[in-house]
C-alpha cells in the first residue's frame, strides 16, 4: 500500500520543494523586472536613518554632503555651502530639483525639520552637529553652531544626518527620503524590500526592485551567494575568497577600509612615558606577518592612522620589524641588556596588554607581540576584556592595548585627532597630552581653509608618528563577492553607499 503511493509522494514533495527555489528574478512572468538581492553583515533593527545606516546604504535616504571614492567631500542634496564667520554660521543652498519619494518638494524648511528631528532622537548627532539654531528661506538654510566648527560639512557626511520627510509617520519602518529607491516593506532584522523611485532627481535607477537582507554569519553569506539567494554579498568568509575568485560566475572586489588596527600605549605608565620604549615596541610589531597571516592577506600594512590616499596623510617613515633595533631602543631607554634579555634594575620587564574578542584578529595580534617580546625576556600578560573602552577609561592598571577604529569616517582628520589626542577625548585613555600636538589640533579646529587644514593635519600626524603615541598596524580590507550578472557595482571605501542608481543586472 505504502509502496504504491511512495513514488508519487516523493515526486510531489520534490515539486513542492523545487517550487520554493529562490530563482524568482523573472517573477510575475515579466522579464523586464530587474532586481537584485544584497546580503550584508550589518544587522538592522530599525530603518530610521537617524539611528541606523541602512536607509542610506540602500539608497532610500541621502545626506546633504557625501564623501566620494577619491576621499573628497562633495555636494549631494546641498548644492553648495559657505561660511561667513570662520565656521560659526553656515549657509547651505539646497538643490532645487529634488522631491521626496512622496512627491513633496525638498526645500530648506524640510531639511531644517529633518535636522531638528535628527538632534532630537540621536544624542550622538546632537553632539556632533552642535547646532544652536537654524533658519530656512526657500532653498537657503542657515545653520548657526554653538561654537565654530570649520569641519561642519564633513559632519554632514554621516549617514545619521540623512534627510527625510519629518512629517511622515512610521519613520522606523518606512522613512521617506530623496534617494533612487523607496521602501516597499521592512522586516526588522530580516529584510528590506525596495522599489525604484521613478522621479529621482539624478535620473531613474536601472534596477526596478532590490532586496537588502542581513546575515551575521560569514559562511552563511557565502553559501547564499553560491545558492543564488543573494547577488551581492558583503564580507563573505575570508577563507572562501580564494574559491570564490576561481568561480567564473562570481566576481570579487577588495578595497582597504578607513579602519585601522593599532597598539595603544598608556603614557601614564612610567616605562611607556619613554619614547624609546614605545619605539622599541613598534619595532616588535611584524606588520607584514599580521597582514598576511592574522588577516589572511585581507589587510594593508599601516604606517600611520590614515590611508595614504587621504590629502592629510604625510609621508611616513616605513616601519620595520627588527628585534635588534627594539633592543637598541630599550638600551637607549636606560634598560640593561644581559644575554639578549632586557632588564630594568636587574629585573625582567613585564607589561599588561588589554584586548577584546569582538574583533578576533586583535587577540591574535596581541599574542604575536607577546611572542616577539618574549625573545627579549619581556613578559606580556594578555587580558581579554569585555568592554575595552570602559576598562581603559576606569582603570589605570594596563600598559598596552590592541584596539581598532575607523580613523577618518567622513574624509576629515579632525574626528580621530580630537578624540584620540586631546585631553578628555573619548578615545584617549592613555592620557596623551602633548603641548605641540594639542596646539596643532586646536589650530586645526579653528581653521577653515581646506588646504591649510590638510597641512595642519599632516603636521599633527607627523608629530604622532615621531612620538609613537600609537603604533598603527594594519588597515583591514573591505571585501565583497557578487554574481557575474551584476553590473556597475563597486565596493565603497566608506561603506556608506551600497545601492546606487547605476547598479544594474544583465538579465
Amino acid at each position, binding site marked *: 500500500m505504502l509502496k504504491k503511493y511512495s513514488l508519487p509522494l516523493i515526486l510531489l514533495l*520534490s515539486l513542492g*520543494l*523545487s517550487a*520554493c*527555489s*529562490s*530563482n524568482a528574478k523573472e517573477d510575475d512572468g515579466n522579464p523586464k523586472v530587474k532586481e537584485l538581492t544584497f*546580503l550584508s553583515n550589518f*544587522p538592522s*533593527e*530599525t530603518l*530610521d536613518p537617524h*539611528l541606523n545606516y541602512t536607509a542610506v546604504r540602500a539608497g532610500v535616504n541621502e545626506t546633504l554632503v557625501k564623501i566620494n571614492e577619491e576621499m573628497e567631500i562633495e555636494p549631494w542634496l546641498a548644492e553648495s555651502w559657505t561660511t561667513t564667520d570662520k565656521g560659526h554660521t553656515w549657509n547651505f543652498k539646497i538643490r532645487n530639483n529634488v522631491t521626496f519619494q512622496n512627491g513633496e518638494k525638498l526645500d530648506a524648511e524640510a531639511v531644517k525639520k529633518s535636522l531638528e528631528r535628527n538632534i532630537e*532622537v540621536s*544624542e*550622538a*548627532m546632537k*553632539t*556632533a552637529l552642535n547646532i544652536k539654531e537654524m533658519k530656512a528661506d526657500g532653498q537657503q538654510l542657515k545653520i548657526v553652531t554653538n561654537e565654530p566648527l570649520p569641519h561642519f560639512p564633513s559632519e554632514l557626511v*554621516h549617514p*545619521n544626518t540623512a534627510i527625510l520627510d519629518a512629517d511622515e509617520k512610521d519613520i*522606523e519602518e518606512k522613512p521617506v527620503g530623496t534617494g533612487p529607491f523607496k521602501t516597499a516593506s521592512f*522586516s*526588522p*532584522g*530580516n*529584510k528590506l524590500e525596495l522599489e525604484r523611485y521613478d522621479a529621482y532627481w539624478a535620473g531613474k535607477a536601472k534596477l526596478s526592485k532590490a532586496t537588502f*537582507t*542581513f*546575515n*551575521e*554569519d560569514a*559562511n*552563511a553569506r557565502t*553559501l*547564499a551567494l*553560491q*545558492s*543564488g*539567494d543573494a547577488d551581492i554579498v558583503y564580507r563573505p568568509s575570508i577563507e572562501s575568497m580564494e574559491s570564490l575568485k576561481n568561480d567564473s560566475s562570481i566576481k570579487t572586489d577588495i578595497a582597504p577600509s578607513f579602519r585601522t588596527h593599532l597598539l595603544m600605549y598608556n603614557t601614564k605608565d612610567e616605562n611607556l612615558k619613554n619614547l624609546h620604549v614605545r619605539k622599541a615596541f613598534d619595532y616588535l610589531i611584524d606588520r607584514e606577518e599580521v597582514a598576511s597571516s592574522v588577516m589572511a592577506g585581507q589587510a594593508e600594512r599601516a604606517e600611520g592612522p590614515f590611508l595614504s590616499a587621504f590629502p592629510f596623510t604625510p609621508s611616513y617613515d616605513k616601519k620595520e620589524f627588527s628585534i635588534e633595533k627594539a633592543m637598541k631602543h630599550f638600551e637607549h631607554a636606560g634598560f640593561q641588556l644581559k644575554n639578549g634579555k632586557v632588564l630594568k634594575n636587574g629585573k625582567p620587564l613585564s607589561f599588561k596588554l588589554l584586548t577584546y574578542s*569582538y574583533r578576533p584578529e586583535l587577540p591574535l595580534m596581541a599574542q604575536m607581540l607577546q611572542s616577539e617580546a618574549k625573545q627579549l625576556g619581556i613578559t606580556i600578560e594578555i587580558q581579554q*576584556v*569585555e*568592554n575595552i*573602552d*570602559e*576598562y581603559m*577609561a576606569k582603570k589605570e592598571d594596563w600598559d598596552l592595548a590592541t584596539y581598532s*577604529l*575607523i580613523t577618518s*569616517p567622513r574624509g576629515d582628520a*579632525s*574626528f580621530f585627532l*580630537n*578624540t584620540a589626542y*586631546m585631553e*578628555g*577625548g*573619548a*578615545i584617549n585613555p592613555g592620557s596623551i597630552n602633548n603641548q605641540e600636538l594639542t596646539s596643532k589640533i586646536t589650530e586645526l579646529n579653528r581653521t577653515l581653509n581646506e588646504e591649510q587644514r590638510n597641512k595642519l593635519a599632516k603636521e599633527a600626524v607627523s608629530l604622532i608618528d615621531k612620538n609613537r603615541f600609537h603604533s598603527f598596524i594594519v588597515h583591514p580590507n573591505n571585501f565583497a563577492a557578487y554574481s557575474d550578472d551584476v553590473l556597475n557595482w563597486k565596493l565603497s571605501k566608506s561603506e556608506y553607499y551600497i545601492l546606487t542608481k547605476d547598479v544594474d543586472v544583465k538579465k
Partner: protein
Amino acid sequence: MKRFSSRLMELVLFILLLSFISFAFMKLAPGDPVRYILNIDDVAVSEERINELREELGFNDPLVIQYGKWLLQFIKLDLGNSHMTKQPVIEELIEKLPATILLTVTSLFVMTIIAVPIGTISALYKNTWIDHVSRMFALFGASVPSFWLGLLFIQLFSVKFGWLPSMGMGTIQHLILPALTLGIAMAAVYVRLLRSSLLESLGQDFIRAAKARGLSNGRIFFFHAFRHCLVPVITLFGVSLGSLLGGTVIIEVLFSYPGIGKLVVEAIVRRDFPIIQGYILFMGLFVTVINSLIDVSYRYLNPEVRLKEGRS
C-alpha cells in the same frame, strides 16, 4: 482557587526577584550604554559629554534608585524604550516573539516526528540492528554542533539542489531548514529518553496486569506503556521549550531568521539594557507558565499523581 492564588503570588514574587537580580547583574557587568548611544567610534566625543549624558539618563544614581525607577515604570506595564531603536521594549519583543515561537513549535514538531517513532521502535526491538542504528543516530545528533549541521543543510538543500531558501523568513519553506536543524539536534536526546522510559514502563506490574486482563498489545502499548513513559518526556519537553526559546539564537543568526534571540544578542552587544531586561522577564514569565501547565498535565498523564493530590 486557593491553589491558584498561591501560584499567582509565587509568580509575582518570582518575577520581582528575577527582575531585581537581572537588573543588578546588568548594571554591575562591564559595558556602558552611553558610549553606544553617543556612538564614540564614529563621533568625536569628550569624556565630559559622556559623563554629562550618564548623569542625564540617571546612570550615575545608586543601583536601588535606578531599580526603583524601573519598577515604578514596570508596574504601569512600561518596560521603557530601546536605546537602539527608540521604540517601546514591549513592542519590540512582541514583534519578534511570534517568529521565535513559530520556529520553536516547528522544531518541537520536527523533533517529535523523528524521536517518537525511532525511540519507540528502538525500545520495541531492543538490542537488534534497528536499536543500534537509532542509538547511533542519538549519538550523532547529540555530538554534532547545530550551526555545523545548519551549514551542511544549506550546502545540500540550497546550494546543491536549490530546493530550499538558505535564509530569511516568509514562507513555510523558509522554516524547514532551521526547524530541521534544531529538531534533529533535540531529537537525539528524546530518542534515548523515550527508549529507556518505554523499556522501564514495559517492565512494570501494571503492564503485566493489563496483559493478564487480556488487553490487546496495541491498547497496552498506547494507553498504558506509552502514556506512562510520557511523564519524563513531557518534563524534558518543558525544559526544552524554555531553552529553545532562549537558545535558538545561533540558528536564527545562521538562517538570518528574525527572532527574539537575534534581537537580544544585538541588544547585549550594544548594552541596550531595557531590551535585555524586558527579554529576561518575558522569558521568565513564559517558562514559569509552561512549567505550571506541565505540572497540571502530570495529573492527567499519571493517575498516581492525581490520587496522591486527592489524598493530601
